């Protein structure tokens, strides 16, 4: 038995395996490169086709401007777009930042209190089915046209996915794992922090990925309805004056904001998975 273990310790079969594998399948780096290059090439081709079709067919720029026109607008009006981009970004950040603890804490309460769970769960699912966007004007009525209304509305539509997936995650812990905790007389708090919470992190991040896009939607819809700044306002303003190129430039920046937020969540997920050794 000892010998067997020593072999395991010194032989390092894992490292050997990788080199052999790597040599045999030399095309793997090429594969990885292709998975990055191919989508970019596709996007570039689409943009080029768009550019050619629009310029050749003589569609009015106010209907559909070519990508180059959008790009030049983006460069020329960068300062203006940035002024509108900042409040949108900040409001999204605040709304998303509040939604995460709100969703997680409410989920923990629901998992630990059966009556609260029974009282809330069915109603929450029902709420999920409401087209929540329809309630946006009411938030303006209740909270005015300031940032509070947009942030509140954004939280309202984006914390549900976090809540629901956290509830699922907290309940998905292996039964024997929970029995082990009970047998070593772990308290409910200890089980929550040491077991349930780490095990539900993949679920929480899955919910956050959905929530982060909804958070931006919430803020932009709020800006559409009543606002004097923000990218949503800028898009609405540009469209009403048939400045489609400016509208598209603002949308481009909005995409960038959305991607950055999504990237942050993915980054957080990678760090978490590394720390908790979750594959």
């Amino acid at each position, binding site marked *: 038995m000892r010998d067997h273990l020593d072999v395991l*310790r010194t032989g390092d079969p894992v490292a050997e395996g990788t080199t052999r594998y790597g040599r045999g399948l030399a095309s793997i780096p090429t594969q990885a490169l292709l998975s990055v290059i191919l989508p970019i090439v596709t996007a570039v081709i689409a943009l080029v086709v768009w550019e050619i079709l629009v310029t050749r067919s003589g569609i009015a720029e106010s209907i559909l401007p070519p990508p180059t026109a959008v790009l030049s607008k983006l460069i020329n009006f960068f300062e203006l777009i940035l002024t509108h981009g900042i409040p949108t970004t900040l409001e999204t950040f605040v709304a998303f930042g509040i939604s995460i603890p709100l969703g997680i804490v409410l989920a923990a309460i629901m998992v630990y209190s059966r009556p609260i769970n029974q009282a809330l769960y069915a109603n929450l699912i029902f709420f999920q089915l409401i087209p929540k966007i329809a309630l946006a004007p009411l938030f303006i009525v209740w909270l005015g046209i300031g940032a509070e209304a947009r942030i509140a509305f954004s939280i309202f539509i984006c914390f549900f996915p976090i809540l629901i997936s956290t509830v699922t995650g907290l309940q998905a812990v*292996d039964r024997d794992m929970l029995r082990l905790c009970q047998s070593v007389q772990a308290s409910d708090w200890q089980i929550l922090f040491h077991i349930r919470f780490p095990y539900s992190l993949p679920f929480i991040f899955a919910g956050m990925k959905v929530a982060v896009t909804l958070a931006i939607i919430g803020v932009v819809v709020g800006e559409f309805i009543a606002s004097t700044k923000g990218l949503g306002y800028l898009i609405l303003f540009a469209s009403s004056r048939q400045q489609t190129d400016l509208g598209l430039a603002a949308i481009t920046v909005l995409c960038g904001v959305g991607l950055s937020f999504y990237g942050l969540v993915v980054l957080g997920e990678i760090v978490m998975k590394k*720390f908790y*050794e*979750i594959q």
Partner: protein
Amino acid sequence: MAQNIKIDSQSSLGFDQDAYIVCRQVHKVYNANGKPLEAVRSVDFSVGDGEFVSLLGPSGCGKSTLLMMIGGLESITDGEIFAGGKPVTKPRREFGMMFQDPTLLPWKSALDNVMFPIDMMRLPRSRYLDRALELLETIGLGGFEKSKPRELSGGMRQRVAICRALISDPRVLLMDEPFSALDAMTRDEMNILLLGLWQTYKKTAIFVTHSIREAVLLSDRVLVMCDRPSTIISDTKIPFSRPRDIRLGETHEFNEICAMLLGKITAARTNGDGEPPGEIVVGGAQS
């Protein structure tokens, strides 16, 4: 008061005087979608202090449920379970548990997994650290303290789980098919290891298994449990002296006992309602 009555009645029922764990008319009925489902029916047995007893039976015969009730992790529908003279109502520190799955935390090192009960019970880490390292060394995991479960084989993970069950020096070890998820060779290795550990630490142990050979090799007594009804149908003393080793499995006497136990299980099952038998392993503990 009730406790005294129970202890008095024990002797009249012929229970071992120095029994540490006593089950008296234990019943367990589950509520399965509104219908009562009987998991354990009138189970009576006792386990002596320092005795190694196996609960042997096919899958789904209620032996794990019974073990969980003894460990205070499942409620008892009717009857009583005593450990050290006191009724078991909730988990106790004197119980060390092992499950089919090692149930290690993937983000903790082997050492921290062994220390998990100490951390949860809020006992001083420094007092148990040496013991943890010693246990890992004894069990053949010296040098793997810092390894994460991902880096360990299935057998090594289950060894970490053994150390974790022993870290707080429990009086009773409750094991729920701890080796049934391992391959046959690793399982033999773990059986030898457990024999050695039991020789050293002399814990009262209840071991749930569906392998006849494993039960006979490890135990002082084998209790056969059957389904429909889920109750104990036989109590067999295993006469072999200790220390034992794996070669015991090659002796004629050993195989006779195994054949006798298999006969009892088969007889009980054919007397039942003729449902197809569950999983029962006849081989397994052979090298």
